């Protein structure tokens, strides 16, 4: 029975923690087509803050893994690298990746499992942790580990970031799984490092219950919304998809900014869901965030209120966005934005 096996796993893991141990974090280093995800680099920084060893896990198809491993060897904070290659790992499906994670974690002395708060890691980590009878904490914004007591204290936002919760996981949680908020940890850069890499046999799933059909990524020459230092974001006032593009893109171009959208704009079809900024979309903290025709609902603020400079343009003087904006202009954005583009070009 599942219950019995989970209890067995928990006891087996607890036995190895009878004495205080130095932390050993397993970091899920994600990549897309051979390019390392910035969120994973933030996860690496968080793992380093725990103190102790940091093993990076890289999985994928034979086409990309070796290239990613070479890049990972130079990353600051990585003490060792594990990699596993399989056609089944070409797309990060939780059902096919979980067995590998479970095997690695059951047979070694990892104290923490860390990842970005990416859609793939968020889908995978809790599945793995539950099977090992452990919790997963999401969207961590800071952490502190105490080796003597083998306990880790985390902060994370709750209620759409309107409160910050500080929680402690003691030694009774033998492996602490958590995902980190990318904007809260500097992405790890290159170090004078050269970590050792070790291949791990994949665990192929026979007749997988879930099959990947297609991935559609909204491609753009613009900077990626998640990591851009400038963001120009549009709301429902932008009328339709064409107007959204024709109004915002010139401004984004002149500023070298990424484009974002409010939930209302995405729901109405003006922009792709990948551009949504908010409590349940992307959380960004750029140098400059421009909110155009966005009213400033609590759920939207949750995704951008840590931005350095917030500029808002809205026809409604009572729009809540003005309460958080450093610079607010009450005006018709269709008149003002073209003028702004012209003047910025000078």
């Amino acid at each position: 029975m599942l219950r019995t096996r989970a209890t067995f796993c928990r006891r087996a893991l607890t036995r190895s923690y009878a004495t205080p141990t130095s932390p050993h974090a397993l970091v899920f280093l994600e990549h897309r087509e051979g390019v390392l995800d910035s969120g994973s680099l933030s996860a690496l920084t968080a793992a380093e803050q725990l103190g102790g060893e940091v093993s990076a896990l890289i999985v994928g198809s034979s086409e990309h893994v070796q290239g990613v491993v070479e890049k990972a060897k130079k990353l600051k904070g990585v003490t060792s690298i594990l990699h596993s290659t399989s056609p089944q790992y070409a797309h990060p499906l939780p059902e096919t990746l979980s067995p590998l994670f479970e095997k690695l974690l059951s047979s070694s002395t990892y104290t923490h499992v860390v990842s970005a708060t990416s859609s793939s890691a968020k889908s995978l980590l809790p599945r793995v942790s539950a099977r090992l009878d452990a919790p997963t904490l999401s969207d961590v914004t800071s952490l502190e580990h105490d080796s003597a007591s083998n306990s880790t204290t985390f902060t994370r936002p709750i209620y759409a970031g309107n409160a910050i919760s500080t929680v402690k996981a003691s030694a009774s949680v033998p492996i602490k799984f958590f995902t980190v908020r990318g904007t809260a940890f500097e992405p790890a850069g290159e170090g004078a490092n050269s970590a050792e890499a070790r291949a791990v046999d994949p665990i192929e799933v026979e007749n997988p219950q879930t099959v990947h059909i297609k991935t559609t990524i909204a491609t753009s020459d613009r900077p990626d919304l998640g990591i851009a230092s400038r963001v120009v974001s549009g709301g429902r006032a932008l009328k339709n998809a064409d107007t959204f593009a024709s109004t915002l893109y010139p401004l984004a171009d002149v500023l070298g900014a990424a484009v974002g959208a409010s939930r209302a704009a995405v729901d109405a079809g003006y922009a792709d869901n990948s551009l949504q900024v908010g409590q349940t979309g992307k959380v960004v903290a750029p140098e400059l965030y421009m909110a155009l025709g966005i009213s400033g609902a609590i759920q939207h603020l949750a995704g951008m209120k840590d931005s350095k400079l917030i500029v808002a343009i809205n026809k409604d003087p009572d729009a809540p966005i003005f309460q958080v904006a450093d610079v607010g202009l009450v005006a018709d954005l269709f008149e003002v934005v073209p003028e702004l583009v012209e003047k910025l070009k000078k």
Partner: protein
Amino acid sequence: MRPSASRLLNILVPVKRAVDYAVKIRVNPQQTGIDTNVKHSMNPFDEIAVEEAVRLRERLKASVTSIRAITIGPAKSADTLRTALAMGADSAIHIEIPESAPSPEPLAVAKTLRAVIERHNAKAAKEEDKVDLVILGKQSIDDDLGVTGQMLAGLLGWSQATFASKLEVDVEKKEVFVVREIDGGGEELRCRLPLVVTTDLRLNEPRYASLPNIMKAKKKPIEKLTPADLGVDYTPMFETLKVAEPPKRVGGGKVANVDELVAKLREAGI
């Protein structure tokens, strides 16, 4: 005409009573939590889950044999179940916990749901009566953890499809075509039943229950259970040390025209 034996769907929809999305929450003076003496309603993502189950029945008709809602919470949570019943669920299960008890952690919730499903499926007279589809919200807007669905799928060893924006169930083939919202765009999957789905914003727009349906809901059955009945331990694994307000963002700066705006941007190094 009754659909053939092995091609029926039994849907379980876990729902949560949470602080209403429009409430301006306040941290209590002791910094132990937030003031919960405010309006509560069904977690918006769970409303989407209930709606999707009801739409599946509208599409697949008699193939959807049952839609059961389930919640874990104090007595007041029964209101949330009545809402689900008014939207179209057939029956509900209330796992009741004391008013003073802390909200159970996601792993405990997942274990509870697993216990309910296993209990039900063990008693099922036929294969076709087993619960084979669980639809729940991708996250609850109070703790914003977003892990329960994945944990349940892991405990059960079922397929999982998180952040679903479209579902197409082929009951004959026991397969579900799912479109998911992921970072950067979308993903299409085919999942074999049994399956756990977590809902994203654009899966559907939930209906408002009509008054006749609200009245009918009062007569629909709600089974009451306790965590002890299911053998699940709700002892928290995390200790909450503090709940605090985030650093305050002071805004309100205004400019009168584009020239002043440009000046401010230049000042900031843009």
